[in-house]
């Protein structure tokens, strides 16, 4: 584990609102949202389509800016940052995982995992070593040279996770990571998230599935852009509820 676990909140949303359009046809995706997510937490965000979960995820992931309100990431007001600083934050502090995997086509798994480090100006030998370790941690050491088109959905998502964690971000954001996967692959992916949380990373994931949400320590339900339910299942410092100390050791995850 690289960083000591601290009680300092990772994410603070203060009156964050997001509206699309204007006048009569204004859509309120998020209404004055207040939310604090602490370091080391494991949060599932649930809600129906249009409840604002993806909008919230995009704001937390620094992909989109809120219309009103403040968003502090590790104490930094993100709205004050320019393009270069935002790129730095997306690169070092946040690991993004998407429902549709979003691997770069016609590019090997290893190269996909190398990509964030290319943008972080990591030297090639170190980059390859770290990328290989990250792939090994998700059980894909032997698929490093395969392109996305040669991998199953579950494998692609595991490559995407390796890519998200390879720069050692403290915060992992996943937008319906199991949405396109079968049951077995979903379980594999969730086990990886569990281990990442045990290794100290803050995890926020969006899901429709109760099964997936059961892995989290805290479940937040959104409706019409506002929080309607916020339940803590497990203490922040405890292990994830479904965590099975299985065949993979913690060191492998930390890579």
């Amino acid at each position, binding site marked *: 584990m690289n960083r000591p676990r601290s009680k300092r909140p990772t994410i603070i949303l203060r009156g964050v609102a997001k509206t699309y359009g204007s006048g009569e046809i204004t859509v309120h995706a998020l209404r004055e949202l207040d939310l604090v997510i602490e370091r080391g937490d494991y949060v599932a965000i649930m809600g129906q389509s249009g409840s604002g979960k993806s909008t919230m995820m*995009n704001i937390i992931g620094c992909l989109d800016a809120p219309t009103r309100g403040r968003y502090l990431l590790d104490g930094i007001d993100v709205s004050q940052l320019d*393009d*270069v600083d935002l790129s*730095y934050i997306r690169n070092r502090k946040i690991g993004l995982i998407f429902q549709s995997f979003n691997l*770069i086509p016609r590019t090997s798994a290893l190269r996909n995992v190398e990509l964030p480090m290319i*943008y972080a100006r990591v030297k090639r030998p170190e980059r390859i070593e770290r990328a290989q370790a990250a792939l090994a941690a998700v059980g894909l050491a032997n698929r490093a040279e395969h392109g996305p088109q040669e991998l199953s959905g579950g494998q692609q998502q595991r490559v995407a996770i390796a890519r998200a964690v390879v720069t050692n971000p403290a915060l992992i954001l996943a937008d319906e990571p199991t949405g396109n996967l079968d049951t077995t692959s979903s379980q594999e992916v969730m086990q990886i998230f569990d281990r990442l949380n045990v290794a100290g990373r803050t995890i926020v994931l969006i899901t429709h599935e109760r099964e997936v949400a059961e892995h989290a320590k805290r479940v937040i339900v959104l409706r019409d852009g506002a929080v309607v339910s916020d339940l803590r299942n497990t203490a922040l410092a405890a292990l994830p509820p479904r965590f099975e100390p299985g065949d993979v050791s913690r060191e492998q995850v930390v890579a």
Partner: protein
Amino acid sequence: MSIREAVRMALQGVLANRTRSLLTMLGITIGVASVIILVAVGHGSAVAVQSRIENLGTNTLTISPGGIGAFGGGGAQRGGQSSAAAQLTMKDVQALQDQSAAPDIASVTPVVQGQSISITYNGTSYSPASFIGTTPSYEQARKAPTEAGSFFTQQDETDRSRVVVLGETVVLNLFGTTSPLGQTVKINGTSFLVDGVLTAKGSNGFQDQDDIAIAPLTTTQATLTGVSGGISQIVVEAKSSKTVDAAQAEVTAILTPTHTSGGAATFRVLNQASLLQTTASTTHTFTVLLAAVAAISLLVGGIGVMNIMLVTVTERTREIGVRKAIGARKGDILGQFLTEAATLSIFGGALGVLVGLVGSRFKIVGVQPVTQAYAIALAFGVGTTVGLFFGIYPANRAASLRPIDALRYE
């Protein structure tokens, strides 16, 4: 992102869609190749024209009767039409041969042109485009060596020998393949002995230089033209190419006192060297014109690169979004797509240089192209710059995409 990584990504992008990349490169290739080939053709024709003019001798001055403005053929004024002052005579020739007054003149060759001359051999009749009566120094001054037999001599001149030297075209028309040497032809009814055949010169672009017959001046005046018509032309050869201008000044100084009418000179001096300069500047303009036309195709090639890069950016919008989401800066994306445009143009340009060099080896509309190093460098340089320039807009468009918009793009 290092240059090395940018190049790797660009190559990957180029190779991902080979057919399209190849077609894009083709635009630049054609542009670069056409600049190289057309400039080579321009230079080739310049070289050809200059060598023809040099055939006439660059050290020579041609003096013909007539005022400054009357730019006509050498034989434009003859017979009794001209006034005495306008005519060139053997006295002028003698005056020019005076070494004390004209130290820079090597030789003076009077030329008389015969009109309506018909040569007959064995029942075949032929009229050469020009019939010339002159002195033996003509061979040297006009660079008219013989291929077979010999030019007539000073002795022939003194004796008024009835000898003639024929050009290739005349020989072909009268004798076919048999040798004309030692044969007797009738020129306007008078018998002449064929002494030699001139080395073929080909066309000078205006007329066939081999369609000619040359006889001694004295003989020509005695039998064909008479002495009253004066001399059509005096060819003056300077001692070296450096003294041509001095020789011209001497010619003017010697002839002006006797050849002035109403304050204006009644003779013209044509300087072969200045003609060469004029032609050189004309062919240069011609070359520039060709290059300009070719440059337009380079521009079109560049627009082709822009077109394809725009398509590529649109197609890969989602990929750009992903790259930004994992930390690519604006500059990284800009660099990636600019490098891709540069890769296309550099390969296209290199291919164009190759095609241009190969294409320049062939004769094009009768001209042997002469490739120019500067044209190759310029075409390649401009070609790649154009490709890069037109890559800026699409690359900038890609780099300016907001990550959220790019990720949502379907």
